[in-house]
């Protein structure tokens, strides 16, 4: 038995135009540089929406988005649900703690049952790598990967890229749209910490490299993936002190203690001594270098308390941009692009236009 969701006919409307992908966002690799740039451009519009007194547009009115989180996550789920609601979509929240998955129903049965109710998109967080890809094979609805095991977390990478672009544009004193993507060319980024078990790192490396950044991975050997064959990174280092003065962005990864990664290093203390961004190490960073972290932060482990609160740390801005980026992704996957429209000129629904509000 297999239920399939009927899709509404969209006469005169062409398929949403996230480059390289059908209707899913499973991996940054689905997007390529063009797709990433498209998401970032559309995000600009939604950042503007967020500044309005009533930050809501009717773009996805009548669409239903399910957030299916088989792994605990507050911030990512809230971020997606806020994004969907600001697009006027109906949101169904499926949390594993209260769900039939806990009662032994298989993921496939659960997903097909929900899909049968008529759903346009599944936002899937799952502890197993590849689960969103499997869901995408089982349902006709769009599937957005909200983090799968160690594999990928594409919207995190997109919001990180957006944040870098936004901050660098502000510094140059020019509008984001004018700056475009050229700040990424030659941008030097260090990704520090538990790369092996990090979906944020896998998506981040693909996205930043696609936009032209030069990436250095900094980690102890036991926290690097077994093979980096095919990874678009320029260098691998075990010496954070020597890397810090050379980078424009220092991206710290959460030490994934809840996945047992603690045993990959002798102790948290030794990890911090070698790879934590301590106050002393933060002083090695070049002027203007950014400190980023996907959250939640282990203060005192990968990042010192004081460093987390420095102006160069853009962690809260990452969170704020998360909503706008996810609005852009949902809109591009589910929204309607007017037939024949050039890339970037999007119809956000009645009552929306540049400068409006």
């Amino acid at each position, binding site marked *: 038995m297999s239920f399939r969701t009927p899709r509404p006919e969209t006469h005169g409307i062409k398929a949403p135009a996230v480059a390289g992908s059908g209707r899913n966002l499973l991996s940054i690799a689905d997007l390529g540089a063009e797709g990433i740039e498209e998401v970032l451009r559309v995000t600009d519009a939604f950042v503007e929406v967020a500044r309005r007194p009533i930050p809501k547009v009717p773009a996805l009115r009548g669409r239903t988005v399910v957030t299916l989180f088989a792994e605990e996550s507050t911030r990512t789920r809230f971020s997606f649900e806020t994004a969907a609601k600001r697009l006027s979509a109906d949101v169904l929240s499926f949390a594993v703690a209260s769900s039939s998955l806990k009662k032994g129903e*298989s993921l496939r049965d659960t997903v097909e049952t929900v899909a049968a109710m008529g759903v346009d998109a599944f936002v899937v967080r799952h502890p197993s790598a590849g689960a969103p890809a499997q869901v995408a094979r089982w349902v006709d609805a769009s599937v957005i990967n909200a983090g799968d095991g160690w594999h990928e977390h594409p919207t995190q990478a997109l919001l990180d890229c957006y944040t870098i672009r936004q901050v660098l544009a502000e510094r140059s004193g020019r509008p984001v749209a004018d700056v475009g993507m050229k700040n990424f060319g030659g941008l030097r980024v260090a990704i520090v910490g538990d790369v092996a078990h990090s979906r944020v790192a896998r998506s981040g490396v693909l996205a930043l490299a696609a936009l032209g950044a030069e990436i250095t991975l900094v980690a102890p050997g036991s926290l690097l993936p*077994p093979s980096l064959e095919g990874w678009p990174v320029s260098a691998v280092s075990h010496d954070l002190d020597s890397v810090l003065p050379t980078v424009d962005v220092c991206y710290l990864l959460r030490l994934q203690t809840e996945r047992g990664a603690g045993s990959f290093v002798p102790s948290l203390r030794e990890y911090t001594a070698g790879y934590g961004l301590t106050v002393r190490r933060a002083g090695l960073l070049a002027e203007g270098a950014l400190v980023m972290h996907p959250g939640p932060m282990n203060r005192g482990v990968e990042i010192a308390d004081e460093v987390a609160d420095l102006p160069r740390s853009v962690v809260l801005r990452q969170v704020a941009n998360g909503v706008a980026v996810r609005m852009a992704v949902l809109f591009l996957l589910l929204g309607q692009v007017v037939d024949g429209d050039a890339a970037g000129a999007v119809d956000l629904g009645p009552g929306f236009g540049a400068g409006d509000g």
Partner: protein
Amino acid sequence: MPPVPWIWARASGPAMADRRRTPAVARHATVMVRGGTVVDETGERRADVVITDGVVTAVGPGLEVPTGATVLDAVDCLVAPGLVDLHTHLRQPGGEEAETVETASRAAARGGYTAVVGMPNTNPPIDNAAVALEVLGLGEPALCRVAVAGAITVGRAGECLAPMGELAALGVRLFTDDGTGVQDSGVMRRALEYARGLGVTLGQHCEDGDLAAGGHMHEGAWSSRLGVPGVPAAAEELMVARDIMLARLTGGRVHFLHLSTAGSLALVATAKAEGLPVTAEVAPHHLALTDAELAGYDTVFKVNPPLRTETDVAALRAGCAAGTVDAVATDHAPHPSQAKDGPLDTAAPGMLGLETAVAVTLQALGAERDGMAEGDGNGAVPPTTRPGAAASMTVGDVLALMSWRPARIAGLSVEQGGDQGGPIAVGMPGNLCVIDPAERWEVDPDRLASRSRNTPWAGRTLIGRVRHTVYRGEPVVVGTEAQR
């Protein structure tokens, strides 16, 4: 042999039970396989084969059709001794949802096999005479000979030796804890010493438990990119190396199951050069597929040992050509769909093999007889099955790995008192298969005889197919269809 309950006969109704009592050979007193090329250990020759009452009674070109004979057309086909699979998961008792002895034997017959060795990782496991007798009893009315391997340790727990003497007395010649390797070197040493006295062989599933722990695919470039915990090649090679040393220490015979890495084959080649009593098998899927198949997280490609790299595939093919590999064994591992429907890390490892093994192996080792030009652009050949290095193997070389050589490892060859592996000659048992080496066919999981559907070849086109199988003089498969 004492009577054993045949629970699936009851479940299937009286008709099935009645068939069991019908002597098969009586209904097919004379069978003639006409017009084919006989390939066995003695070579290749154009010949017809006549089998009467289960025994080969005539072999030669242009024979007269005996009166009343059932004639099987073998024009443009190979006629080989029935194939022998050293590594079949029958799943019965305990896993009847996935497969039964009956359905596995039907799948085997359709794959050209006239004998399979059932692995002991059933529930309960085959670690005592009672369970062995049950499975052997279930095998009596089957469509091929059903032998079993016994467990090396009680419960396959790797601690206490199973009653190997009691099992050997029932004819069990191969022992293994397959599904897991014997981790404790001391236990393995004792087992080899004890086995030596019984004249039996220990099969090892080589996997160091600590190195492999938590892994779901080959550890390498693909696992790193996909974010899937991996099983390094070293997990297998470590145990291969250890067991070679234990074979040297004890003089016991070791058969390495489903070797999957270039490093393992290099170790075995060295051990053989030293004259140690070791043999090795590889599985068809490891000769044909790589870890790149996991790129879409399709659980049908999850198998243990995992699909490895192109380098490993090439080394396995070369090992077949060089004689390092003694047998191609399917590791036929049926699973019901719900065991494969979850995420990759919770899905059961294993894939079907019996019905596709001949085609996959002939293609992988370059011995299929494809009438069409190389790279004809119709997409018929999966990209990783085009051989190259191993193209020098003849059909006879490949069938040796699937019939007479495994027959000897299983203790089922004629000179060992068994009835498998040929050669096809007057007075020999009437077990043979007829293979059309040029037939192209698309694998449809719904049309397999296995009770499960987890074939990695679903929707792909293979070249080479078993047309007929004759078991103890009975044409159990005719025109690719099982006759009962």
